[in-house]
């Protein structure tokens, strides 16, 4: 009986504490597909959530490791706890989120990486393809074997787009080099990432890039004194003498922008049907580097300055300067240059982007072809 009474008192205290603090603040819920400690996708979203809570008068809640098919009850729960805005952060949450947007027309929903919208549901994505191109320029300059390894998660348009952009960068400075791809069919599997890297090492690759949520590829390469690019989170610290650069994300730029507009009344549950954030370097949603604020690991700067290439646009130029010129062009508003500017043929010689054309967002999110220089299996490759 005494325990019961103590419990009751505790519940009351908690209820008051939660209620009192939340009165003035907008409640924002986040649904994550993985654990927040995954050192990748979910970790990055959670970092952004913390920044949002510091910078805006909002209160945040989150649920981690939500199975993709079970997103609806978790959304329901967040709404019951008072969430007025709900972000779902995995492609597989798309249909469940739309379903709930229809059921709760006054709640605002945001879905990352998808393409379905509603009057109260917008979409957002911070994409890396420009950064991968810059990584490719450096990889092409630093490889000695002219073989570059890429460990890919799933053969889907997003990953293919990144590998293609990377390979276009590699070939822009090193027409002899090839990008060897191995697929592991997992977003997180250190053992697979490790053995795939070992397989690529055995075939002579000496620079590595990857899509997987652990620093395995970096560590395996560094043990053999081979170079690599960090992916998603700041992973340069795992191999400070071997990580050249990488891709970093700032989801908070999107969350802050959107929530500020919700707070100011510009966005509400009626006018989101055409709101799609496809944010890149220019919006500062992504960053070049293996560590925040370090676009290129300083120990590689001299080698990149010594590597010189002939370019149509800038004449004879060092790869270091080329990276910085391209970075500046893509960071400008409006963007002055895009890696997927035609003419681009795929590895089979089929013209994919006509001269003078730039790929649209719709084309980028559905692309399946492989860029020249890509070697290895490529499921669903168009003929």
């Amino acid at each position, binding site marked *: 009986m005494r325990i019961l009474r103590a419990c009751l008192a505790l519940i009351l205290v908690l209820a008051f504490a939660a209620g009192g603090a939340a009165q003035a603040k907008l409640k924002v819920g986040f649904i994550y597909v993985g*654990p927040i*400690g*995954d*050192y990748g996708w979910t970790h990055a979203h959670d970092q952004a959530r913390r920044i949002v809570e510091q910078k805006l008068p909002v209160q945040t809640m989150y649920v981690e490791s939500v199975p993709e098919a079970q997103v609806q009850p978790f959304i329901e729960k967040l709404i019951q706890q008072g969430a007025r805005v709900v972000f779902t952060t995995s492609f597989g949450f798309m249909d469940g989120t739309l379903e709930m947007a229809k059921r709760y027309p006054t709640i605002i929903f945001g879905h990352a990486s998808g393409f379905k919208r509603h009057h109260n549901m917008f979409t957002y994505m911070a994409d890396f393809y420009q950064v991968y191109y810059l990584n490719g320029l450096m990889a092409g300059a630093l490889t000695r074997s002219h073989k570059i390894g890429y460990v890919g998660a799933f053969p889907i348009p997003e990953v293919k787009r990144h590998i293609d952009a990377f390979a276009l960068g590699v070939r822009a400075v090193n027409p002899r080099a090839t990008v060897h791809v191995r697929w592991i069919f997992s977003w*997180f599997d250190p*053992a697979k990432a490790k*053995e795939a890297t*070992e397989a690529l090492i055995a075939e002579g690759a000496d620079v590595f890039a990857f899509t997987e949520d*652990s620093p395995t590829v970096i560590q395996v390469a560094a043990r053999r004194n081979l170079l690599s690019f960090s992916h998603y989170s700041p992973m340069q610290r795992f191999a400070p003498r071997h990580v050249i650069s990488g891709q970093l994300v700032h989801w908070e730029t999107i969350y802050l922008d959107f929530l500020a507009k919700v707070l100011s009344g510009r966005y509400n549950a009626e006018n989101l049907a055409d709101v799609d954030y496809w944010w890149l370097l220019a919006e500062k949603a992504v960053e070049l580097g293996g560590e925040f604020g370090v676009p290129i690991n300083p120990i590689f700067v001299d080698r990149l300055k010594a590597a010189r290439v002939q370019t149509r646009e800038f004449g004879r130029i060092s790869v270091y300067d080329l990276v910085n010129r391209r970075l500046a062009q893509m960071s400008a508003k409006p963007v002055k240059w895009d890696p997927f500017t035609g003419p681009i043929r795929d590895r089979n010689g089929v013209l994919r982007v006509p001269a003078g054309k730039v790929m649209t967002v719709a084309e980028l999110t559905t692309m399946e072809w492989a860029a020249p220089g890509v070697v290895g299996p490529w*499921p669903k490759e168009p003929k």
Partner: protein
Amino acid sequence: MEAVVTWIAETLVRALALGTPLLWAALGEVYAERSGVVNLGVEGMMILGAFAAFAVAQTFGRPEVGLLAAAGVGGLAALLHAFVAVTLRANQYVSGLALTMLGLGLSALLGRRWEGLPLLNTLPEVSGVTFGGVLLAVLLWFVLYHTAWGVALRSAGEAPAAVDAVGINVALVRYLAVVLGGMLAGVGGGFLSVAYRPSWTEGMTAGLGWIAIAIAIFAAWDPLRAVAGAVLFGGLFHLSFRLQTWIPPEPLQLMPFAVTILVLAAAGRGGARRWGGAPEALGLPYSRGEP
């Protein structure tokens, strides 16, 4: 010709590297199941071992000490399972699954602070742990088939009432086997974090515990066959990435699992197994007076 030799040598190194953690964990499961206790908590014990080994190795700079800690933590986790399965006589499958979830959750919670830290001193991938694992397999095989302890252990899994009747404590035998199994699984997990990777990441075992259980079963609960199963799987797992140049990756994903099972099952038909099928009392709690 030289290329072929290089290929074989490279694959063998990979086979031993990934085979090592699988072997240690599989040997542990062989002993636990031989005593009559199924432990589906291998994944949980391995991840706890991986975390303990990393934390200790990181703190004290000694990976070997990390492995000892992993053995201790794995043994403790297994003790929990033994208590539930042997003393409380609860459902072993449920208890084991709970242990897996507990291990994954607890290591994730405790491990947050260790995420992303480098490890200065590491063990080589093919090391004393690898050869120790093979020697251990021979030793465990010898004990199992050629000593009175082995008879008691096997009998506890086949006919616990008979063991009880000759005055051997069935519960004690099962406790010892399960705890030993947990210690070995812990070392297997520890090897992942101080030698194979080497670093700590939440959930880093990513299913290897389940593969170890499968190896124990398809090796017909024989320590020497477990060596073959673990090394074979390790090599094929590596080849499934190496061969992607020539074979589509989708079917290749299944290849290591399919071939390992086929090979071990075919070898099992040779008649070397002295008992037909699984231990008779596997998964059944023992209590005196019940059939």
